[in-house]
């Protein structure tokens, strides 16, 4: 490369680690985002340290300062093109808080409907497009076929079905809400449009089809993947941490759209708090080698450490965390699966690779929940938005995104423009655990200087499980 930039970028060996051998995995693939894994080996070729670097930052928290708050939900969706709905909804909830808005019931239902439908598509994407190649094709096949194209070659029928289901799910959202990627339909005070009866009926049909697919996917995964999980798989990237997730206020059940946050320690004890109180429980740590920050549970009073052997303040979120913190799931099929899952792995479950399983249980839940919401005819109430009045205030919007608990925290001035913002996205919560899992995986996989591509892919699989 010209200008020597890449050389400068190549990581230098950590001081005091003799051999100076550093293995760089970049980009970390089949994830969303820009990360680099650096595995530092000691003189014997054993892992001395690992780091997962977040390589870029865009600065949303900064550049939404000064923007009119009602415009912000349409801006922050661009934080993530895979889960824009989650940001869109969380941001609107935060702006509602700033402006003191109340949202009509139908508006709330439409918001939850859209957000949950987005969860479905996201899970299909992650499981089948990003993670499945490792399992369906095998983590050790050549990297050039270990991908969705490989799946298309290997199982064209499955691939066709998956692509079609996801596409249909996306189009359902788009048809009703206009825009599926970087949505605009959720607005401060509610939703931008109401649902007609005809639309409800049509969407209900579509969502029942999705539910069928979710059941098929669950069966398929159990038959072909989870049944083959061996102890190596279960221990890949396994670490012991706490968990964060949202549950229903009254019933402690799995909740994606609204509820209270439950911060569980590894021993199963937990704090419950509203999103607005997050700063009392969560702090964000900064490391010099990553643009990403590392949230941790400062409420536990133990500080921050990513040492896999004695982690401090580390918790995880995303689907496995949500299942761990939830007491139950309010839909029958998912509840049945949860019961089976718990009976096999206990609570809380620490095995990183079980994120995949938990994800499919959540897929089932999401499909069931969408059917529930659409069966309720009150969702077609034309009153979907109340007028909002820009003013000074603070609001914290919180939802469960596919990748974990999502927090948008805004303050506004009298003109209703943003003065300060903090956003903690799902993957950010998991940055410390990911680092730990990578270290754990690398240590167990790389011994005496022996490295192969498939091993490195397995290290990446530990990252991929978190669906960052």
């Amino acid at each position, binding site marked *: 490369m010209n200008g020597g930039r890449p050389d400068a970028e190549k990581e230098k060996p950590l001081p005091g680690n003799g051999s100076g051998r550093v293995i*760089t995995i970049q980009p970390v693939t*089949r994830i969303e985002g820009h990360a680099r894994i650096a595995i530092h080996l000691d003189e014997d070729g054993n892992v001395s340290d690992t780091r997962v670097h977040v390589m870029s930052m865009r600065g949303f928290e900064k550049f939404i300062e000064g923007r009119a708050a009602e415009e912000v939900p349409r801006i922050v969706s661009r934080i993530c093109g895979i889960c824009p709905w989650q940001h869109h909804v969380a941001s609107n909830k935060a702006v509602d808080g700033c402006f003191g808005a109340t949202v009509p019931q139908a508006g709330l239902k439409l918001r939850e409907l859209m957000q949950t439908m987005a969860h479905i598509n996201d899970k299909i994407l992650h499981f089948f497009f990003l993670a499945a190649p490792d399992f369906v094709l095998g983590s050790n096949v050549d990297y050039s076929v270990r991908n969705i*194209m490989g799946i298309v070659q290997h199982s064209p029928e499955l691939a066709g079905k998956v692509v079609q289901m996801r596409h249909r799910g996306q189009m359902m959202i788009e048809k009703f809400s206009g825009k599926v990627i970087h949505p605009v339909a959720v607005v401060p005070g509610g939703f931008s449009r109401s649902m007609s009866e005809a639309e409800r009926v049509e969407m209900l049909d579509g969502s029942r089809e999705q539910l069928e697919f979710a059941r098929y996917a669950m069966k398929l995964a159990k038959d072909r993947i989870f049944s083959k999980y061996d102890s190596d798989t279960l221990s890949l990237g396994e670490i012991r941490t706490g968990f964060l997730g949202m549950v229903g206020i009254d019933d402690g059940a799995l909740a994606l759209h609204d509820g209270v946050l439950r911060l569980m320690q590894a021993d199963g004890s937990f704090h419950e708090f509203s999103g607005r109180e997050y700063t009392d429980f969560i702090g964000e740590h900064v490391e010099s080698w990553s643009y990403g*920050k590392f949230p941790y549970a400062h409420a536990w009073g133990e500080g921050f450490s990513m040492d896999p052997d004695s982690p401090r303040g580390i918790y995880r979120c995303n689907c496995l965390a949500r299942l761990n913190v939830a007491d139950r799931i309010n839909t029958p099929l998912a509840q049945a699966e949860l019961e089976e899952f718990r009976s096999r792995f206990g609570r809380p479950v620490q095995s990183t690779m079980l994120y995949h399983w938990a994800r499919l249980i959540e897929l089932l839940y999401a499909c069931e929940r969408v059917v529930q919401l659409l069966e309720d005819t009150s969702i077609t109430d034309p009153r979907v938005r109340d007028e909002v009045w820009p003013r000074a205030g603070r609001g914290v919007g919180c939802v469960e995104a596919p990748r974990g608990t999502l927090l948008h925290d805004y303050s506004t001035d009298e003109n209703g423009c943003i003065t300060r913002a903090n956003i903690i996205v799902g993957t950010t919560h998991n940055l410390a655990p990911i680092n730990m899992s990578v270290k754990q995986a690398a240590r167990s996989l790389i011994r005496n200087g022996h490295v192969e591509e498939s091993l490195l892919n397995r290290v990446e699989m530990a990252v991929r499980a978190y669906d960052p």
Partner: protein
Amino acid sequence: MRLTVAAEWLNSCAGCEMSLLNMGEDFIACLRILSFVHMPMLIDHKYFEPMGEKIGFEFPEADLGIISGGIRNEEHLAIAEEMRRKCRVIVAIGTCATHGGIPALINMFSNDELFRRYYRTTVATDAADTPAVVVPPLLDRTYALDEKIRVDVHLPGCPPHPDHISAVLTALMNGEQPRLPTKSVCDTCPARREGKGAVQKMRRYTRNPRHQADKPLTEMKCLLENGLLCMGPVTRAGCAGEKGEAPQCIRARVPCRGCYGPVQKNGNQLLDMLNALASNGIDIRNLPDRQAFLRFSGAHGRLNRPGWKTRDRQQEETAGPESR
């Protein structure tokens, strides 16, 4: 012969890649014709093959280089330059790549301001120095791709409509110049328009325009004529796709914010919109933060930090041409 494709995302969000997947069955069809040699989201090709120990990026040659995202740090720049060298045709996909996109809003701030807020003055953050180890340094601002490398095909959109991604890929496979929409969003908007003369002033989007869910959009009055800022007239069409019923935001009864960038490649959405409103005698004082009319097209020096304004003055003061 199968066309080889290398794809990268730079200062982006993966939305463009999602849109690619949203081509649905066309996507599968494409996979049969295109041979992806690099695409971090879907395939495992790395920069430092095979064992992550080589020095320097290794990019495969490809017929087609598809890049989403603008350029924000030195690594983005290096990747973009390397792709330019290795790819016959570079397609800038998405408004971030063509005009800077939403992330170019940061151009209204300096990196110092950004870091200060991000690492030192955000609630809940344990204040610390700005990360500087290994992570690539940021450039002074966000750049659109064509500010740094030559771009052959511009496909704006946030995200670009799958129909047009498909159109571009198909055209390039057939060795043709892609044909993309050239008019504004209004071209695809069925809302009834009569003229803006009745609008006295713009109001903020704090309540919905009147509509009935079961009535077709053809019966809806133009949102701009409803007194809502709609960037449709100054924004490139495309979001409605090839056959879509209406622009996407309009389908949600939400006014356009300009995500396809200016109608003409080098247009200025802020200037054009302010001009159109002023020409119609519309009072825009109600709208705060008018700079954000450029929220999708702030690269190319359009959005700037407030501090750089007085270059002319500085020049006057220092009595000589500035050589910054």
